[in-house]
């Protein structure tokens, strides 16, 4: 059919007829899949009202000045121009966000995958369940990361300070969350501690889904060691979970803020732990400049989409 059109599409009427025919086919296709649409309808309705609409409104607001009380005033690209040329703190925030995302994202992802892989090998069911719990517990435990505030407390009652002093390495307590030198490394440790969860759990479930007969077949085909087995058999069979884990890692590592604010204060000393989302919360919830905050969110959104595209393309190469 396509060839037919290419040959004769000089004639307008034939082209029109082609479009009509395509539309007819599409209609038939849609009618044939009536049940499919019925199945997705409830979710799509909720999604449109509670997720899609707010996102679109926010993107629209990013081109306005909106202080929540007055009606939004259209300002064009002004917010974006200001972000890049008039806002030094934003550039610091971008730098910090990339620092956190580039370090905690990949390390967290591979650590989660590696540990899930090792745990999956444990034969004893009870130990396996316990290990799974151990690695997921920090993610599920809500506010428990506050305990790090106690470990890295700035007085002598904190563990880190007390031990360093007892061992004679330092003589006075370090101000862990007040000294720019220490803030970022400590926060990276805490973030790694609590952000493995979501990807980790889906990897565990995915690993258990891998068809065992594939391994035997693989060894017949010349798979030599555990790592070849991982690369050629295990990972390709859990690609959907790898993609899920990657998206969750991107969303959490670029949107880092809550834990940082709870530990290092908000705003942190000299903006050392100020991320893009911190900046957004600052303008959105404290200064009530929603237009500006929306512009920040939209930019972050675009960066995350691009990053996701790149990673999905890389993941497609797994097992080749």
């Amino acid at each position, binding site marked *: 059919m396509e060839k037919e059109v290419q040959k004769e599409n000089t004639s307008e009427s034939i082209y029109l007829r082609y479009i009509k025919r395509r539309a007819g086919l599409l209609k038939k296709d*849609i009618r044939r899949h009536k049940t499919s649409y019925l*199945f997705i309808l409830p979710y799509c309705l909720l999604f449109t009202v509670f997720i899609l609409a707010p996102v679109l409104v926010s993107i629209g607001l990013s081109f306005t000045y909106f202080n929540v009380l007055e009606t939004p005033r259209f300002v064009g690209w002004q917010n974006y121009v200001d972000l890049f040329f008039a806002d030094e703190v934003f550039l610091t925030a971008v730098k910090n966000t990339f620092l956190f995302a580039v370090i905690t994202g990949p390390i967290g992802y591979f650590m989660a995958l590696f540990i899930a892989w090792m745990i999956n090998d444990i034969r004893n069911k009870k130990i396996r369940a316990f290990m799974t719990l151990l690695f997921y517990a920090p993610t599920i435990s*809500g506010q428990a990361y506050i305990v790090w505030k106690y470990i890295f407390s700035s007085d002598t009652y904190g563990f880190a300070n007390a031990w360093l*002093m007892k061992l004679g390495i330092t003589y006075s307590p370090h101000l862990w969350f007040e000294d720019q030198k220490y803030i970022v490394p400590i926060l990276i440790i805490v973030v790694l501690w609590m952000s493995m969860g979501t990807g980790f759990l889906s990897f565990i479930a995915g690993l258990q889904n891998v068809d065992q007969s594939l391994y035997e077949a693989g060894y017949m085909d010349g798979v030599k060691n555990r790592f070849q087995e991982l690369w050629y058999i295990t990972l390709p069979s859990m690609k*959907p979970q790898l993609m899920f884990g990657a998206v969750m890692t991107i969303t959490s590592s670029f949107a880092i803020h809550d834990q940082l604010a709870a530990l290092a204060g908000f705003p942190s000393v000299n903006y050392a732990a100020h991320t893009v989302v911190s900046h*957004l919360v600052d303008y959105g919830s404290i200064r009530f400049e929603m237009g500006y905050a929306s512009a920040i969110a939209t930019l972050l959104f675009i960066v995350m989409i691009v990053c996701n595209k790149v990673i999905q393309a890389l993941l497609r190469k797994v097992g080749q």
Partner: protein
Amino acid sequence: MVGNAFSIAILILMGAFMGLPLVLAVCNSLKPLEELFIFPPRFFVRNPTGKNFHDIFVLMRESWVPFSRYIFNTVFITLFGTVGHLFVVSLCAYPLAKHKFPGRNVIFWLIVTALMFSAHVTAIPNYLIMSGLGWLDNYLSLIVPAIAKPMGLFLMKQFMEQVPDSLIEAARIDGASEFSIFTRIVMPSVKPAWLTLIIFCFQDLWNLQGSNYIYSENLKTLPYALSQISAAGISRAGATAAVAVIMMIIPITIFIFCQSNIIETMVSSGIKE
């Protein structure tokens, strides 16, 4: 053998890194005040006391509305939110994974992309939508948006892709309706996925403060009430530690329950191509 010892060593080391802070959190909740502030600090508790938990109960008794009301609110929201989310999301994930209907790629792309938009900014549009629907100060404003979360759908769709087509085709030839294929074949074979989903959703809703949309004291949630206790700062250091432990016990229990079921199904189910 060497490789084995190596991996066990890594697991133990990493496990200690993950587990010790939580053990410390539990220990802290049992420490009397004089042990919380001591030099040098001790990791384990020497004279365990239930005083911190007792303090919470005392504070609870003085609360404005009966404390059981906060617990009821959170349990109610968590229960309906999780069940609704699981049902709606699975229903939508099945055609997205297994039917080739026009528009499915666009819909799926939209859902995954929306995952990446910062929730901090959509607060205002969301508020306007809630007030437009008349749902402010109503359980619905907390339950329904939780049902619409894209992450669960993404997870279910990824797992349903792995269900062999031949299985579905066979059922279709036997004359099964799409709904019964969904409930009898697809859902049982992705049990690990929806048990995982329950964990995610439960944990989100259990920690939901929801103070954006809820004003009436008798509709407020447990995390909100408990955060009021720990808001008093250092004077309630002990009670704060106890609050953290209380908040993490229930999700961890649910996790253990779901996780043991996941492992069991994987052993017993023979659904493979």
